[in-house]
């Protein structure tokens, strides 16, 4: 079965995204569905990874709520991050170890997808050893955090196209005191539409992971 991509159009509450992924991971581990990649935007939320520390929050749960930002735990690796509209989130539900490309390591491949996507829009980005995400001269453009259950992946990468960067001011992203940037901040009026970035990311994903994606509509669960 070839890999599938789903482009979810509504800003999805984070908790619904987690529930959907958990059901997809179980279905993928059982072999009921092929590798599946979700592309979506979240409603505003600050998430704490499994080792996330609340001292990396600058605002309390109530103060976040007053700004319309939910606070949610996440079972992924990594510390604290922000998701919101204008940020492209990619959640691969992949059974690892089934393609030659997997020998490079999942993290390396995810970063590669982010770097190639940035390059398509004229943004030079790079890895920083030991740090989360992909980086540009203006700061971090994309964050990475994932979980592997039964050797099926969940969570993934969030890539800042044109989010409200003010959302990141509620936290020390990933526990680091480093700036966060977006394609909008880097490119101004030349910033592409989120759908254009999503389409390029899906193509790069297919090439890097050797899993060409067929875009499907409807419900990702059978």
């Amino acid at each position, binding site marked *: 079965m070839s890999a599938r991509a789903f482009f979810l159009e509504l800003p999805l509450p984070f908790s619904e995204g987690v529930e959907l992924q958990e059901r997809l991971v179980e279905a993928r581990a059982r072999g009921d569905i092929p590798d599946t990649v979700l592309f979506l935007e979240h409603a505003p939320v600050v998430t704490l990874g499994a080792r996330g520390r609340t001292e990396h929050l600058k605002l309390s749960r109530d103060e976040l709520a007053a700004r319309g930002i939910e606070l949610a735990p996440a079972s992924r690796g990594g510390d604290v991050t922000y998701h919101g509209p204008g940020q492209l989130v990619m959640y691969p539900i992949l059974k690892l*170890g089934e393609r030659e490309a997997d020998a490079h390591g999942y*993290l390396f491949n995810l970063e590669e997808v982010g770097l190639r996507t940035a390059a398509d829009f004229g943004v030079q980005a790079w890895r920083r050893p030991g740090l989360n995400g992909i980086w540009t001269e203006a700061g971090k453009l994309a964050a990475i955090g994932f979980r*592997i259950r039964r050797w099926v992946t969940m969570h993934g990468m969030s890539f800042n196209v044109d989010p409200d960067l003010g959302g990141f001011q509620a936290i020390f992203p990933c526990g680091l005191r480093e700036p966060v940037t977006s394609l909008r901040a880097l490119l101004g009026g030349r910033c592409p539409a989120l759908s254009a970035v999503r389409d390029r990311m899906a193509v790069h994903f297919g090439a890097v992971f050797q899993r060409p994606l067929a875009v499907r509509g409807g419900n990702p669960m059978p």
Partner: protein
Amino acid sequence: MNVPSDLRYTRTHEWARLDGGVLTVGITDFAQHQLSDLTYVELPKVGDEVGAGDEVAVVESVKAASDIYAPCGGVITEVNAALPDRPDLINRDPYGEGWIFKVRPASADEFDALIEPDEYEELLPGSEG
């Protein structure tokens, strides 16, 4: 990827070594490579009764979290107490100092039911790609 020939394996990338009726268990070179530099290990408790395929430990890197599964049913007899302070031992020496726990199998044939090295190697992607 390094796949030692004297071990048995699982489809979830654990290895097991049989010694005196007890299995020593860790994660394979493939698994540690996927997770990158580990920063945290959650161990089972000595005396825990586990079933084959149960989640018994958790390992985390800067970016990833992954469950570790029991290769067989039995009782946990020992855990690698060095790991909480030195999770990097799993990356440096996954088949040696990076062992995670020991389990006494409920039945002696559990070890033989695990995957042979050559078969495990076939489950892995090649290093060219």
